[in-house]
């Protein structure tokens, strides 16, 4: 019962956030320099027929709120309009590009979790050792290095120099895709690994200083129980939060990494659409991003719910 209410509240909050975002996103068209017709026309011939068609399609004669409502009801049916550049349905374009970015983002995320959590956990437990210092400094550099610079470096060393990985394209089929996306995923993951490792280390240090860890050790519980059930699970909450943030931010990284590795994903689509002012595509992308981010946050909330009985039973974190 309570869990349902909790979820309901979060979903409601997510919906409100999406609504506000959608309004801002819709305003992009009106706010972008030049008249909406001009923007929507793109590079097409400004024939009176076309202009009339565009005005009708986007209801440019209606007042702003009506237009918004019209657009929003379209969006709810996944109708984001047509690309100015290619006249294709925005939703088709997004669907086509989403694939690569999802792969990339999830692949990088898996890397983040596989590398960052053990590294951070072991550093946090063995604090002030050489290993801890190594992890800390590496993480520091990882957070600081611009992803595109990392990408270029990986590309020239592992792609070209050593020839271990293909240097462009997204590949098709599972194995092929994995080999194509490994370098980009690593480039994308570096910052995430660094952030999550730092967070895990801090959380672990925080948790291992807690009384219940000492008490568990005092009771002679085996190390794996203390590390697993006690340290790991209790440091999981901040780690999940930061991991969620990393996942949500991976689209930003994707923009940079995809342009470095020439991947046909949402990130490169954003750069292309922005620089050609293909507003409908940008709107679609912005909403999709917001939805992804909000979705990730909901998942984080669910994890909280699953992991922390205090949230399940008492409400509020």
């Amino acid at each position, binding site marked *: 019962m309570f869990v349902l209410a909790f979820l309901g509240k979060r979903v409601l909050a997510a919906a409100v956030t999406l609504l506000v975002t959608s309004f801002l996103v819709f305003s992009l068209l009106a706010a972008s320099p030049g008249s909406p017709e001009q923007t929507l026309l793109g590079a097409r011939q400004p024939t009176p027929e076309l202009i009339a068609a565009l005005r009708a399609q986007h209801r440019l004669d209606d007042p702003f709120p009506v237009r918004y409502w019209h657009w929003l009801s379209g969006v709810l049916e996944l109708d984001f309009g047509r690309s100015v550049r290619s006249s294709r349905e925005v939703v088709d374009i997004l669907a086509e590009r989403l694939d690569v970015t999802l792969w990339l983002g999830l692949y990088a995320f898996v890397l983040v979790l596989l590398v960052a959590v053990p590294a951070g956990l072991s550093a946090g437990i063995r604090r002030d050792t050489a290993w801890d210092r190594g992890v800390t400094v590496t993480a520091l550099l990882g957070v600081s*290095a*611009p992803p595109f610079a990392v990408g270029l470096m990986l590309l020239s060393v592992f792609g070209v120099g050593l020839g271990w990985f293909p240097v462009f394209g997204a590949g098709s089929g599972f194995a092929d895709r994995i080999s194509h996306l490994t370098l980009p995923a690593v480039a994308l993951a570096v910052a995430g690994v660094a952030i999550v490792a730092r967070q895990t280390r801090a959380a672990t240090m925080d948790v291992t200083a807690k009384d219940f860890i000492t008490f568990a050790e005092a009771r002679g519980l085996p190390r794996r129980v203390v590390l697993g059930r006690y340290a790991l699970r209790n440091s999981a909450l901040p780690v999940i939060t930061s991991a969620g943030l990393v996942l949500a931010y991976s*689209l930003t990284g994707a*923009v*940079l990494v995809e342009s470095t590795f020439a991947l046909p994903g949402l990130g490169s689509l954003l750069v292309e659409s*922005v620089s050609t002012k293909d507003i409908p595509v940008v709107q679609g992308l*912005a909403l999709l991003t917001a939805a992804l981010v909000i979705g990730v946050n909901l998942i984080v909330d669910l994890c909280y719910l699953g992991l922390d009985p205090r949230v399940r039973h008492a409400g509020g974190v």
Partner: protein
Amino acid sequence: MIVRALSAFALGLVVIAALLGDWIAPFDPGAQDLAGTAMPPDAAHWLGTDELGRDVLSRLIAGTRTALLGPALVALGVAVLSTAIGLLAGYRGGWVDSAIMRAVDLVYAIPPLLVAIVVVGVFGGGYPLAIGVLIALSVPADTRMVRSAVLAQRNLAYVEAARTVGLGRGRILFAHLLPNVLPTVVANLLLSFVGALVGLAALAFLGLGVGTGAPDWGRMLAENKGLVDLNPAAMIGPAVLITVVAASVTLLGDRLYDLMSARGRDAGRA
């Protein structure tokens, strides 16, 4: 320890470069040598030359000030706004806090750089707009942190005592709470700086962080990425500088936070 010393050394060099700039550059950073373009490093040009035959090292040095100015503006802007809003929200509580925090939550999860790409790309506002967007979107996260620092302090006895003594809200906020959330503010300030440094470089890399004609690390990185084969130093130079400065400033932030919060902490408390 070694890392800390190295980063302090690096920051020292960067600060000197920012202050002295042109004086210590081995060449005129604008001087072009069309006969010697894209040359790899040699005895005269330690980092080689760029596509117009300009000395990369001199341009890096000359660009320090510009490269640091934007991030500094962002960091200061974010610090001032987030501290003001965070103090207000945390101390006032009630509906003011709720309203501010709802707004903050709304923007919190949105990656600032992504919005900067869209806004700068669509509106073409260039550098000032990029800085504005980065400030606007970085404020929420920092506001949250300042607010929770305020909340941690707000119910401490010294604040309640100050209220009981009858001090005004302004005095409590600025004379009592502010000094105690300052470690958070300073740490955030430096982290915002790092974020903006990398973010503006990313915008420049995408061709959106447009600036004036003056040399700037982010732009050099983007402009010289075509030289990766002929003179890699021209691209690696700014990339390494950005990374090192970002890492050093992060480290400095961690360190300052520890030092500043240790000042008021009780060592031997049972």
